[in-house]
């Protein structure tokens, strides 16, 4: 495979303005956010127009882009205000909107003809003819269904000249996205308008129904039936997608923490940059995999990329133990002479704690907390107040935006 000159875009989620800043600072080329309307993550922070404007302004400083997910499957009563909304997004400087419902495509094309539209994964685009359809509709980019394989993406890329965005990391719907209304039926919450109760991850009993009645298979096996997917991760296989010329590599998780986003973005940024520096000699560094696991919340899988997911791609029984890490502090400043960092507390940390500093470009080092001072310069044993500004003695230079993590 010849080397592609153009690096793909690394696209990260941002549930709020602070997450947007971390995602971009840690290396995302673009972020996707939700507004107050038309988005599928009702519980994510979501952005007001003012916050969007600030996000765009921040992104511009890095040459990064901001996309807005407007990916609900609308009902009649949700259509009001769509045109004004898209017009406003365009004025703010949003680079593209991610849409699943053609009603919103129509509204967007009419109100903001120059606002780029990407078709959401909720539209379940799983073949090259459908990609071709959207190309003919003037759509520059499609976000693929999570059910497509690497080989299928190769075929799509060969047959259709359209930008392809594919998920590389994060939680997965176990259903075809958008084709599940379990939540609607079990909780009266509309999954396709942001109310998903994740009923797929609940516990069920499976029954075999015979002429003489039903047998509770789950009871006999003493193991609940469930449909919870492990989380997608392409950390060990990214070159397979890079070689195909996938245009945008997407990380899932507008609900995820700052620590999660910074960690995951940092790793994939490093992988992409390492690969393009020298594609022929690219080698996976185990440290990147190790780092990804520090943000992992579930076991990981490559899902549909290489084979149809078996039971090994699902979460059954007791969850695997994954060490969890906290965002303990944010570096605000560093004094080279004294080797003392100013750290804003984000989670409690204390003298004697084993912590790890990390920052963009895969900087990371571990140390023990030896000394902490509060704002008044008083030595303290523990930084327990949320957001308190402390001074911490550090072993290596750090800088603003570096983070300090601590194992839970």
């Amino acid at each position, binding site marked *: 495979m010849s080397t592609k000159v153009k690096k793909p875009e690394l696209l990260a989620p941002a549930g709020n303005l602070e997450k947007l800043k971390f995602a971009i600072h840690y290396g995302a080329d673009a972020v996707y956010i939700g507004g107050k309307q038309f988005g599928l993550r*009702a519980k994510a922070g979501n952005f007001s127009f003012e916050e969007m404007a600030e996000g765009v302004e921040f992104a511009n400083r890095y040459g990064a882009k901001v996309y807005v997910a407007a990916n609900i*499957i*609308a*009902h*009649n009563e949700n*259509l009001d205000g769509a045109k004004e909304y898209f017009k406003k997004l365009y004025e703010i400087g949003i680079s593209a909107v991610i849409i*699943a*419902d*053609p*009603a919103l495509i*129509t509204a967007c094309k009419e109100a903001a003809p120059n606002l780029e539209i990407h078709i959401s994964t909720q539209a*379940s685009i*799983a*073949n*090259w*003819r*459908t990609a*071709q*359809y959207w190309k003919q509709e003037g759509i520059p980019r499609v976000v693929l269904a999570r*059910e497509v394989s690497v080989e*299928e993406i190769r075929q*799509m890329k060969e047959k259709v000249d359209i930008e392809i965005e594919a998920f590389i990391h994060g939680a997965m719907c*176990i*259903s*075809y996205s*958008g*084709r*599940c*209304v*379990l939540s*609607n*039926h*079990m909780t*009266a*919450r*509309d999954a*396709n*308008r*942001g109310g998903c109760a994740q009923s*797929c991850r*609940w*516990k*069920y*009993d*499976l*029954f*075999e*129904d*015979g002429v003489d009645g*039903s047998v509770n*298979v789950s009871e006999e*096996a003493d*193991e609940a*039936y469930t*449909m919870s997917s492990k989380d997608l991760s392409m950390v060990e296989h990214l070159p397979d997608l890079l070689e195909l010329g996938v245009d945008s590599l997407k990380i899932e998780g507008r609900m995820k923490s700052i620590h999660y986003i910074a960690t995951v973005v940092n790793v994939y940024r490093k992988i992409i940059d390492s690969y393009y520096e020298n594609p022929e000699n690219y080698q996976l560094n185990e440290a990147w995999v190790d780092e990804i696991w520090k943000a992992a919340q579930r076991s990981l899988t490559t899902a549909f990329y290489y084979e*149809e*997911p078996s*039971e090994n791609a*699902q979460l*059954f029984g007791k969850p695997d133990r994954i060490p969890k890490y906290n965002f303990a502090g944010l570096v605000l400043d560093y004094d080279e002479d004294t080797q003392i960092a100013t750290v804003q507390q984000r989670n409690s940390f204390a003298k004697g704690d084993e912590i790890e500093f990390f920052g963009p470009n895969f900087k990371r080092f571990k140390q023990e907390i030896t000394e902490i001072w509060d704002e008044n310069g008083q030595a303290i044993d523990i930084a327990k107040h949320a957001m308190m500004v402390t001074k911490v003695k550090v072993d290596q230079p750090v800088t603003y935006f570096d983070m300090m993590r601590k194992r839970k």
Partner: protein
Amino acid sequence: MSNYQPELIATARDIEEVKTVAEAGADAVVIGHERYGLRVAGNFDVTAIGQAVQHLHACNKKVYVLTNAIFHNDIVQELPDYFTGLAELEVDGIICGDPSVFPILNELDVDLDVFWNPETLSTNYETLKYWETKGIKRAILSNELALDAIATIKEKINVPVEIQIHGMTCIFQSKRKLVTNYYNYIETDEQLKQDIKSKNMHLRQSNETDTHYPVYEDINGTHIMSNEDLCMIEHLQEIMDARVDSLRINGLFKSREYQQKAVALYREAIDRHQDIITDYQKHQLKQQIVTMQPNDRKLDTGFYYKEQIY
């Protein structure tokens, strides 16, 4: 207005059932093959579809073929031939839900009416107006809509509107083999696993012992069906007041006798609504359905009168 007469549609699992539901009063029959269509009642190859067309056209009834799977590259390669074959058979409509069909049909010189059924995605009139511009000849609405929303959609769009009025509805589709995966996980013997496709199965919420969600696997993956069977026989007046054009009975996982009887009862109900029907008569029709209803399947009105939050 006065010549409004809704079309009654029924699914059929084989040519035998095509004949019985037509006899029982269906105006049109929905058939298909799981390779191309979602949740077919039984598999019809092209020859069998031809037989259905022949039978139904002879009695002035229609045949619609399910081709609404979420296609992957392998199947889209087969679609030109499949569509050409269906056009030659002169089926009265193909039920589609994947936009791939538009470029494919545009390249073929065939006469096929596209009925649009993307299952959960057919929820508002602007969406359906968009698909109208792509040439769809019918809009099949999502089941998770209230009747007043359906009435609004019917008012605002030009193509005929179809809804489901009876039987179970699909509430989940995964490409994964979730039942097989589960059996593999609990390590039951091979024999059991091979039987999965021949067995009827259902899921019960562990904390809601009164629930019953049929689940099964086919080429398209795993399908989970609703806890209740939709039953709108008492509420046809409102549906007909909204001038909904086509009303569908889904016979999936019901006996032949049940499906035949359900079609006959709805035929009677629709015909009576053309004249005058008392609440008592409606109730009696409903009671006949209640009588034949399997014990483990509750009846309800789905989302037609139910609010959703989000």
